[in-house]
């Protein structure tokens, strides 16, 4: 499963329950982020234990994107089905600074910054 959103791509490897995000995700508004929201939710619904979201190659994510991911975390927290693991990179400073926010919304979200 793979889609393009603006200058970014999202790919879901069902075998290892991992979403890979790459490029620059700076869509104009929440309406444009619907496609991203839908993609991540579909991947979550196909996952039984832990969904891994790999942000390491996502160079930029604007605040509408952070809101989209935040709202996804809150929605699946209510379901409490699969857990979420988030991978980030120290080399990409937005990840070091802002990925930790997702754990504050649901303490079952694990954040690994390498």
């Amino acid at each position: 499963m793979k889609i393009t959103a603006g200058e970014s791509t999202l790919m879901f490897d069902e075998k290892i329950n991992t979403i890979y995000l790459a490029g620059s995700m700076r869509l104009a508004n929440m309406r444009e982020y619907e496609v991203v929201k839908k993609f991540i939710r579909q991947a979550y619904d196909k996952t039984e234990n832990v969904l891994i979201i790999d942000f390491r190659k996502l160079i930029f994510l604007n605040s509408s994107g952070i809101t989209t991911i935040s709202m996804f975390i809150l929605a699946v927290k209510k379901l409490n089905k699969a857990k979420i693991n988030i991978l980030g990179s120290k080399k990409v400073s937005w990840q070091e600074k802002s990925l930790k926010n997702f754990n504050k919304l649901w303490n079952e979200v694990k954040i690994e910054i390498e």
Partner: protein
Amino acid sequence: MKTEIIGDFDLIPKSLPAEGTIHLDLKPIDLMTYWRRCGLTSNFIANFYKLTPKDIKNENSVSTVFNELIENATKYSTKRDSEIVVDLKLYDIQLLMQVKNTCNKTNYSVLKKRLEKLQNTEDLENLYIEEMIKKGDSGQGSGIGLLLLLKDYQSKIGAKFEERKDGLYDITIQVYYFMEEEELI
């Protein structure tokens, strides 16, 4: 005509010479039509101000911070005969990012209220959680950009609101971002 100032505005005296300046005049209609120009402008500025060729941390942060400002100015400007005026000045490790645009009374009120709330909130982490929960229930738009700049980037933010004769408002936002010095190699 009324002028109001909120937050950390004009922290550095204008008489102090900056070490690196950029001035850009942009049109919100162009940026709205070709949205990627917001990101392109942000990336150019970030590349210009990084401290060394390998300074990818400051480059990513400056681009992210400035992008929030230019996206906001684009979304909330009046569209016709309107301008976005960008001024950047570097003072040692402090980068002043200033973006001026013109908006209607509704957008002026929303932004003023937002900045007042951010200035008067001590626990920004808690505000982020509260606002996300509220948005999750209502499904409404983003609006957390300035909060993230204060919270995650330890920026200082100020604004000047100037009422115009035509009923519109000139809004000048200033963000002071501190470059991370450990990147100096």
